[in-house]
Structure formats: C-alpha cells, structure tokens
C-alpha cells in the first residue's frame, strides 16, 4: 500500500538512525500509516527527545502532590477533600500562522487536559510574548491572539484572570502563546489515562474528525522559514461551543463510575491518545477506523490517525456501561462511537472493515522513542556592571512616566478587558495585581495564580534566570498572602540542535530545579516548546513558570493598591542597586549588558514567608513584589492602583539614587502598614531586612523632597500606550 523508504521517513522528520530503529522494531518496512504514527510519536513535541533527560532533574514530589508530570495535568491536594489540577501548554507555532485560531485552540487544548482528569476548569491564565511593537506583524498578532483567547475562554464560561505580556524583537518571527488552566476536583475522583480490562470498549466522543491539523505535532517541532505561510492549511479551527458541551457531558459521566480511563486527543490526535492509554495500562488496543466519526468522505487511515481536529476525547468504559454513557453524550448532542477494544496483544492494531492496516507493538514504540543528550555549551558569564558604567540622570523621576508608558510596562487593561474574568462569580482578585485569586466555590478559601519569566535575565545568565522565574512566581503568590503549593512550566527555547541553545535550556532547568527545591515548590506538570526560531534567529530563552498558591482565608489577603493616606511604606529585603540586565538599562539606555541580579534562595524564602505571615496576620494594608523596574516602579504601580501619592525618602547611602530606585535586587517587597514599629520589630525578630521608606498621601510621588511627578500623569501614560498602539493601523 505504500513505498516507504528512508527518504519518505526523512520527510516525516525521522533521522536515518531513528528510521533504523523503526525497522528493527517492526522487523519489516512500515507502511505509510505506521510511518506516520512513528513520526508523530517520536516528534520533539510528543517524545520530548531533546529535553527528557534534563526534565528528570526537576523536583516533582512533596506531601501536597497527588500526581506529578506524566499525566494530562498535575494534581495537588488543597485540603477539604479537594484537589487543584493544572498545567500550562504552548501553542506558539499555530498562533504565529493564524493568531485567532492558534490561540483559541491552545486555550481549548489546555482546558481539555484539565477536565480530562475530572476537574472543572475554574481559571485560565496566559503568558504571551510578541515581537517589536514596530514590526509590521506585531499589531495583527496581538489583536488576533487576544481575541482568540477571549473567544474561546469566554464562550466556555471559564474566567481568564491574568497572565503576562512582553514585547521584544527576538520574538518577531516566533511569538509565544502559553496558556494555563486550573481546575478543581474531589481528591477521590481524579481520572487517569491507563487503559485496562481486556475486551473493554474504547469510545470516541466529541467532534468529528476532519483533515485539519495533520502533522501539527511535527510542525511544532520544526523551524520556520520564509515559506511558513505555505503551512497554513494545517491549522485547526476551534469550536468552544462543542468543547463546553464536551466539558459538561464528561463531568456528568464522571459523576458515575462508568469510566476506566480517559485521555484527550491533543497533538497527534487519535494516535497519541491511544498509544498513551495502551502504554500506561500495559495493554494492546485495536481500533476499527470505519467506526470513527469523520467530517469528510474518503479519509485514509493515515489522515484519521494524524488528524488534529479539536474537541475530541477517547475513553475506556467498564463493560456494559455503553448505553449509559451514550445517553449522556447524545443529550449533549455530541458524537459517541465505540471504535475499538482493549486487547492483551500489547499491540496497537488498526483495522478498516476487518482488514489490518497497521500493527505496531506499543512498548517499543514508547520505550525506544529517541532520547538525546544533545551537546550543549554555556555562554561565558557576564561581568557585573558597576554603577559608574551608567550615567546618573539629573531627575531620576523624569524617565518614570516614559518607562510606565512603554510597551513592556504599560497597563494590560486593553487585553484583559477582552477576557471574561468574572464568570463563575468567584473572582476575588482581578487581573492587574501580583497574582490573581479565585475563591474555591462556596468556601472562604482561594487559589492564587501567577505566571512569570524574565527572558532578559535568562538570556544574560540562564541558570540565574531560571531561578529568578521561580522566585518571582513565589514572590507574587506570597505578596497576595497565598501559600505557594506547586508550579507548572512552559519551557520555550530555540533549536536544541545548536549547543548554545541547548546550553540555555540546561542552565534554565538547573535554575528552576534549584529554586523549586529550595522553596518546596515542586514542578507537577509542564510543556516544552523547542525550535522557536526563524532563519537561525532564536527567541530569548523563555521558561515560563505558572505558580499556584493556596489562600486559607480570603479576608487575609493583600492587594497592590495603596489603601489609604498616611500609612507607612516599608521596603522588605536588601538593596544593592543592581542595574545589570535591568529594565532601566534596556528601556532608558537601550543597553543589554551586565550580569542579572543574583537570586539568594534562602533570602527569598525567608522574606516571602515573612511577608505572607504579616499579611495573614492582618498587619498589611497593601503589598507588591519588586520585579522589573525596581522599587520605584513597584511604588508607582501601588500609587496608580490606589490613586494616591506617596513621599519616599532614600537612605542616602553610598548608592546613587537612581540605582536605589531602579535597581532590580531580588527577594524584595513593598508593604504599607498602619503600625510601622510593630512590623519592623517582627522583621528584626525574623531576621528579615525591613526599613520605612516613606508614607502614602497626596497626589504625587515625591522622592527626597527634590523630585516629584503626579500620579495622574503616570496613570495617563500607563493606561494609554496599549489602546493607542492597537488603534493605530
């Protein structure tokens, strides 16, 4: 039925040695369908062949972890018989080609990962990276991605409560769209993907299978070139309405005990879902392809197996439960078809009208998937940039409005107002703060969620950047009063076949592992996206961290907005005025130099624990972590959010004032309190650095009685950049 050879295998992305392994597993030449199956299963996207050996070094366990990486999503215990199920996933390449559908189906895919495990999605987040605002494609990509994320999430009725957005020319040819979903499930009703029970029915549910998205998984593992526009027909189209029905139908069926295993059809569709279910259960599966609901006539086995049509799932049911399940799916007007059964053969067998069209042993297909220890090299460490290397500005506040009104610091309101961030009526802290908080329905507890990464640091020093990404997620959770529980990540890098890129990956993973371990903040799920480069230009290394924390009492949280006048402003943590790889250096001086700020993990932990305890004790009236842009940006954000000014006094040490204001030393927070003495005493007792740096009040920010700027002026600059940019054409 085919003429499969090494050349055709190469077109499918299999290297000569990988094809040799295929031949030895099969003991013969594979047919085209079998070749297609090997090629998607062994793509970077599905097999993690370049990253797997490094991912194993991440800490993944802890008393709170119910399920770590390897299933559809991670699961952590949040008490009271409930579990949080969460994961982040990229849809970078499809979003660049067709931003609306690419982003929409990314959101749909990650929500399916979560409800496949039995959890109702309760919050979405997204981490986006776009190219230079002046690049001709950027505006169109921003508009499409934002509309696509909103279009899908809004229709599903799951609030999109926050995320992050950066612009940098390094993303001109490869934008990043990383979507995260958090769901809630009873701890005793988590669903897994291991098939079991010889003879049990394998059931297909959801939308029909079309020719869309064929080879999406291999596309996600290939570099772009100037002919990328030719790849357009492979992009899938999302149908959030069908997914909403699929969600309700699945949860309705999950409330019974009819399901043995369930798996969503994501990348590599029916192929990877079947193989994963068979492999996890140590069984074989036989499918009758004529029973698969198709949207178009004449689809070949190859097309059916590789289609990436959205909104589909595969289940193994207990025997005799077919009618019960069918009734539920028909109520929700969804396709329901018994397409195969579990076997004891250990083989993945496909038949059409009784004739075998593919037969692959499952264990070697999975276990002999390629695994590479790719060569890597570390870039030379950057020297520490001395303060003297940067000109001291005459008025250090003069540039503040420029900074806050720039692409990377302006308000993201234009974006998050297009997301329904309030549906489900449990949103407690809306977008715009350090971490968003949603209430756990019908309780007074909550989940805090944040996504973070500073690619500038990761580029300057991957290991420090990896640590910093975790540290910032940790800080953002502590800053709202949440107890960090676990994290998911989305590791976005360039071509791993280049040692310098692989070096970035290795460094970032080492940093993430160190910080995650130091904070007891394990990695429970994640996704790797490689080959994010065009014509040899790679993106900045962007290991995005999605952090989840638990709020024990929603009345004991903190927000960024100054809460009232005449409150003491306290700086937590040590300040050395670190300007290497800082936002000030990049935005104001246009320079990318120097080592990034070091991350002192014990100090991060001590300061975060201290801040959280103060918030939970009710001592704190407002809190903000210090990150990009340093102390003065944090204070300005608090002032803008509270529409209230402040008078700040620097310690006038040997530090230049602008370095004190804009330095990006880590492990720091700004708090406001009614009673400064009591807080300072607590800090002394805890061994945490704390000092009063000013008081809230008035309509301006004033520093050392010498420099001043009105909060309204800052607000105007901060709020106007994005709407103005998007309105231009």
């Amino acid at each position: 039925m085919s003429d499969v050879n090494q050349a055709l295998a190469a077109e499918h992305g299999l290297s000569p040695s990988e094809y040799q392994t295929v031949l030895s597993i099969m003991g013969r030449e594979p047919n085209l369908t079998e070749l297609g199956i090997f090629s998607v299963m062994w793509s970077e996207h599905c097999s993690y062949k370049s990253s797997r050996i490094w991912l194993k070094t991440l800490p993944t366990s802890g008393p709170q972890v119910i399920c770590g990486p390897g299933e559809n999503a991670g699961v952590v215990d949040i008490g009271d018989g409930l579990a949080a199920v969460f994961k982040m996933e990229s849809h970078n390449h499809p979003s660049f080609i067709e931003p609306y559908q690419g982003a929409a189906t990314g959101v749909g895919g990650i929500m399916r990962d979560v409800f496949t495990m039995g959890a109702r999605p309760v919050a979405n987040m997204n981490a986006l990276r776009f190219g230079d605002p002046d690049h001709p494609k950027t505006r169109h990509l921003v508009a499409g991605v934002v509309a696509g994320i909103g279009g899908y999430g809004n229709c599903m009725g799951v609030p999109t409560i926050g995320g992050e957005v950066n612009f940098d020319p390094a993303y001109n040819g490869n934008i990043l769209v990383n979507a995260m979903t958090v769901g809630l499930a009873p701890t005793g009703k988590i669903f897994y993907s291991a098939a079991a029970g010889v003879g049990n029915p394998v059931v297909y549910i959801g939308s029909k299978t079309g020719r869309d998205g064929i080879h999406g998984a291999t596309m996600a593992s290939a570099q772009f070139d100037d002919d990328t526009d030719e790849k357009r027909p492979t992009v899938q189209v999302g149908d959030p309405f069908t997914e909403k029905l699929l969600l309700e139908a699945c949860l309705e069926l999950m409330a019974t005990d009819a399901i043995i295993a369930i798996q969503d059809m994501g990348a590599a569709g029916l192929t990877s879902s079947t193989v994963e279910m068979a492999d996890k259960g140590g069984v074989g599966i036989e499918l009758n392809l004529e029973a698969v609901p198709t949207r178009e006539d004449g689809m070949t086995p190859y097309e059916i197996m590789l289609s990436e049509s959205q909104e589909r799932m595969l289940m193994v049911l207990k025997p005799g439960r077919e009618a019960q399940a069918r009734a539920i799916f028909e109520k929700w007007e969804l396709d329901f078809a018994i397409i195969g059964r579990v076997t004891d053969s250990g083989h993945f067998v496909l038949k059409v009208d009784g004739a075998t069209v593919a037969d692959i042993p499952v264990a070697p297909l999975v276990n002999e998937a390629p695994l590479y220890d790719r060569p890597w090299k570390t870039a030379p460490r950057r020297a520490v940039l001395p303060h003297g290397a940067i000109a001291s500005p005459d008025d250090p506040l003069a540039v503040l409005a420029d900074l806050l009104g720039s692409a990377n610091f302006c308000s993201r309101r234009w974006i998050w107002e297009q997301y329904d961030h309030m549906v489900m009526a449990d949103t407690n802290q809306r977008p715009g703060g350090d971490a968003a908080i949603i209430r756990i329905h019908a309780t007074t507890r909550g989940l805090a969620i944040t996504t973070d990464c500073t690619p500038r640091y990761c580029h300057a020093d991957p290991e420090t950047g990896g640590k910093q990404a975790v540290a910032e997620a940790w800080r953002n959770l502590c800053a709202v009063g949440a107890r960090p529980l676990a994290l998911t990540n989305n590791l976005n890098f360039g071509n791993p076949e280049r040692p310098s890129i692989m070096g970035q990956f290795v460094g970032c993973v080492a940093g993430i592992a160190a910080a995650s371990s130091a904070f007891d903040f394990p990695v429970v799920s994640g996704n790797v996206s490689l080959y994010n480069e065009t014509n040899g230009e790679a993106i900045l290394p962007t290991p995005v961290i999605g952090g989840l924390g638990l709020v024990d009492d929603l009345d004991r949280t903190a927000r960024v907005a100054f809460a009232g006048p005449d409150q003491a402003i306290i700086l937590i943590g040590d300040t050395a005025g670190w300007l290497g790889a800082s936002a000030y250096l990049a935005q104001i001086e246009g320079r990318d130099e120097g080592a990034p700020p070091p991350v002192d993990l014990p100090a991060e932990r001590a300061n975060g624990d201290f801040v959280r305890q103060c918030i939970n004790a009710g001592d704190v009236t407002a809190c903000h972590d210090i990150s990009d842009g340093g102390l003065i940006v944090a204070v300005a954000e608090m002032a803008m959010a509270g529409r209230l000014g402040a008078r700040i006094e620097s310690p006038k040490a040997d530090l230049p004032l602008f370095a004190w204001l804009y330095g990006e030393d880590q492990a720091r927070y700004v708090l406001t309190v009614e009673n400064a003495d009591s807080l300072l005493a607590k800090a002394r007792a805890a061994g945490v650095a704390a000092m009063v740096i000013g008081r809230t009040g008035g309509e301006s920010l004033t520093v050392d009685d010498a420099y001043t700027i009105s909060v309204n002026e800052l607000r105007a600059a901060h709020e106007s950049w994005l709407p103005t940019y998007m309105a231009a054409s």
Partner: protein
Amino acid sequence: MKSAVIVFPGSNCDRDIAVALERASGVAPEMIWHRETTLPLLDLIVLPGGFAYGDYLRGGAIAARSPIMRAVAERANQGVPLLGICNGFQVLTESSLLPGVLMRNAGLKYICRDIHVRVASTESVFTQGYAQDQLLRIPIAHNEGNYRAQESMLDRLEGEGLVAFRYAACDGSADGNPNGSARDIAGIFNHSRTVLGLMPHPERAVDPAHGGTDGVAMFEGLVAALAR
C-alpha cells in the same frame, strides 16, 4: 419564591444566577433543560448569560427557537416575571418578547469590566428595591450589547417608562456608554414591565467578595414582591 433558570447548551452563567437567587430567597431555583416543553408553577423565570448554541448565526437566535421557549413565552404572556441577563436579553429580543436588537459592540471588542448604570424606573418587581436614578456599579461581559431599535420604538420605550437601566458616566469620565447602545439603554421592560432584559450582570455583584453588592437589591426586591 419559586424560580427556574432555563439552561441552553452553551449557557455559562446558569450557576452564577442560581447562586444569587438562592442567596436571596433561600431556595435553589429549578434548572430546566432547553429541550423540555413544559414548566412547573413558577414565580420567576430567568434566561441566564452565556453563549447559547455558541452564539452561532446571531447571539440568542437559535436558543430563542428551542423547545422550552414556547412555554416560556406563554408564561410571560400570562404575566409571570421573566428576566433575561446578557445572552438571556439577546434571547428575549430574538424571541420578540422584547423589542429591538443587540448588535455588535461599537468598539468591535468583547468588553468585561465594571460599568455604572442609573435606575431609570423603579416601577417593576425587578427594580422596586432601588431608588429612582440610583447609580449602580455592576459588571458587564459581552460582545453584542449595542441596543438598537427604530427611533419610534425608542421614543415609545422612553415615553412609556419602559427603559429600566441606562449606562451612566462616573468618576468624571465623559461617557459611560460602553457599547454604543442607543440612548444609553442598558435594560428594558416589556409593556407590562413583567419582562426585563439587561446586559449588565447583577448576579456578579451580590457578594462582598465580588467587589460590589449593587445587584443584591434586584434579587431581594424580587423575593419581597414574589414570595408566597
């Protein structure tokens, strides 16, 4: 107060409104699937927000033709109070239970944020808990909330006091109208003021944890008027 929430495939504020109704009345509403053809005895029927049938064709268009709507219209014509919120308002105009249409927002974007409305009439079971001209802060979340009708219909709505809520400026902002609605209309009644359609989501403002409670008076007012 015995109430029911109609659930269409794609409704997604059905739980939120149920929570708000139960909070006010102490009784959970009945959730009625769109394929039903009859209704129990009821004091209030609610069409919830969401994307019924994906808003395919037009927002609310397919839901308006679903089996249960015949029974809903019958009850409404008998005077049983009927409330449509957001997508529910779109279903009401598509069913001709309320006049006019809800078109795409003037800014061509979905908008989710707190807005302000003024109570334009307190003469109904829905609004009697408010003061005339009271300013409320309530969230909106929609793509198609741009209310349009013929000038003569708009004149009639205003002349007969059938405008329930109007978008209002607040905090010194020049324009409080978020979506381009004619005459700043955010919600209207039918001629007997027993049917209300509105774009804002009062059920998202009934709990201090929501960040506002200006929706409470609508539900408590309904309970006061309709409790048996």
